[in-house]
């Protein structure tokens, strides 16, 4: 991912319309949200929204401050890629006849991906890894013919203190 991609994590009140408020601030400035993941936290009064946005740092800083002003946003942080662990989950279906599957199994083994299902002419595989590794795995599967793909968007946490 290029330098223009930034990961912002916010803890918000788990209430109707909060995602729209957050997304609205990006939309207003014409910032494209590259990926988005939302789920409740351990306390179900709050959710965590993780988004990756494609924008220069300076305008992003302003949006982060604006987001922080939203009444329903409790906490907001930019994840520094050098001190954060980021993960993304992907499910992917490739078109491979039973006789040609060995290379795909090999690749899955190399990436520690999981084969979830096999059909008459296709295979379903999942991978959870860094967004870059997920990109890479997707590229390596492309020659086999991808028929479906779903990615969750990045989530992340700061690294623990050693």
């Amino acid at each position, binding site marked *: 991912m290029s330098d223009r991609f930034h990961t912002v994590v916010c803890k*918000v*009140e788990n209430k*109707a*319309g909060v995602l*729209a*408020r957050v997304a*609205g601030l990006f939309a*207003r400035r014409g910032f494209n949200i590259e990926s988005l993941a939302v789920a409740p936290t351990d306390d179900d009064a*709050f959710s965590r929204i993780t988004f990756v946005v494609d924008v220069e740092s300076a305008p992003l800083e*302003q949006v982060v*401050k*604006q987001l*922080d*002003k*939203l*009444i*329903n*946003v*409790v*906490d907001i942080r930019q994840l520094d890629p050098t001190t954060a662990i980021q993960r993304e989950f992907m499910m992917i279906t490739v078109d491979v006849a039973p006789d040609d599957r060995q290379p795909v199994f090999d690749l899955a083994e190399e990436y520690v991906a999981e084969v979830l299902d096999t059909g008459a002419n296709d295979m379903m595989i999942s991978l959870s890894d860094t967004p870059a590794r997920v990109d890479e795995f997707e590229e390596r599967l492309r020659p086999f013919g991808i028929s479906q793909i779903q990615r969750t968007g990045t989530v992340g946490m700061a690294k623990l203190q050693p």
Partner: protein
Amino acid sequence: MTNGGDALIRSLELEGVEIMFGLPGGAILPVYDPIITSSIRHVLVRHEQGAGHMAQGYAHATGKPGVAIVTSGPAATNMVTPLLDAYMDSVPMVCITGQVAYSAIGTDAFQEADTTGITMSATKHNFLVSDAADIPQTIHEAFHIATTGRPGPVLVDLPKNIVNPADPSSHFEWVEPTAPDLPGYNPTVEPDLDLIREAAAMISAAKRPVLYAGGGILKARGADALRELAELVGIPVVTTLMARGALPDSHELNLGMPGMHGNYTAVMSMQEADLLVALGSRFDDRVTGKLDGFAPDAKIIHVDIDPAELGKVRRADIGIQADVRLAMEALISAIGSTNQADRSAWRSHLSGYQEKFPLVYEDSAPGDALKPQFVLERLRDGSPEDTIVTSGVGQHQMWASQHWNFEHPYTWINSGGLGTMGFSIPAAIGAKAGMPDRTVWAVDGDGCFQMTAQELVTASMERIPIKVALLNNGYLGMVKQWQEMFYDERYSEVYLSPDLPDYKMWAEAMGCHAIRVESPEEVDAAIAEANEVNDRPVVVEFRTDPREKVFPMVAAGATNSELMVDPSQTDKLPGGGH
């Protein structure tokens, strides 16, 4: 047992609401029934936009939150402009809107609008209440949000079923609201004292400093602190369009208004400053002109309660997030008797500018049309010193800000950030309703007047005797000025006609006392007559010279150093002028 409608009115009473401005309709109908017996005065407006601006005028004049109440759909959309206006100018207000029944939301029901969606970016916060039992707490939180931190408008959308006593879903057992439960909202108000000490040192050492006073000072009730700070350090002050009155215009340190139509000294003081102390001001583009050329040598101390303002436009050398009154008080004690740099040269340099470039206009020749600036000066001198002035948007607004002498805070109410034509009459009604013992003059343009004049009917009916100085130049004058100066005098769709409508007849039809003034000799008598009338609104229509332009002026895209002065002063500019 209570119901949502009764609970709403009781909640408003608990917040100390004395007056609200509104207009009923289907979805809000049940709430209007308990209004009959409530202690809260309701002012019935003629258009919901008026209700919003009245709430703003009331809030600005009194310091208390303004309240507007309207129905769903078109009424809510009519409220969007005042909400955004209040948001841009940080005016505390609470707006109650009716909504279709909760189960009907999203079905294109009659008079349904996605009010919380539409107003999301026009409010500090909004609520869609789904449960009647949540009304007391939500109203309490709405007032808390509107009035704390950086003030602003909050909207509460109430589905009909939860306020309608005929609907079982409106019934609940009343519970007193508790402290707001807003985990994401904790505005910082106390300044960081280390930063205050740094700022105090920077101020004390500055040779050419300027205090750049913004509307936040008034919101923070900080006028006294501003005066004390300015006098302690002997630093000149500019008061932005939103801060007029924060320091008396007669104060020797007050340089007046900076910005696009600011006076020469105020604008140039910022350009030449080595330090700008921004106090509750936000480096608006109307103040800075072209940003690259704004105050090129100045270090910046920026105090604002809203952290998103710090560094938004101009990087601050010291950024202090705090209530600006508390920050100024902390600065005063941190500076104490610290030696101040010698600024006598700076002050005499600036008074040189004041002498050379005062605000001027050419008096009308005998028999010639009335000058708007003359009208405003006579109005100022013929009205009580603590008169509250509201204004519309356009040339008349700039002239009012320039030529009035604001000696007290909260005497100037205008639409600064949004620039909403039609603001003055409803804002004046709200201000007068909140401050019935004060004289309230709405300075209006003919274009603006035609946008909200119907609220004079409200003023007549409700016996809120405001006064309107209508500067009728027959044009959308400010736009005409731009077309004259920057579009080769090609006038496109700016002519209104001074005679159509007949403003005197119109004003009389709305229950006002009306006077038409066409020549300079009639001005004083008309003003005296208007100031005598206190049993109904007055409209004085001044037929003014349509050729008059607002100067000084910084053209759009120009730097403030390229300020254009009145043509009669051009030859005094360094280098013969621009």
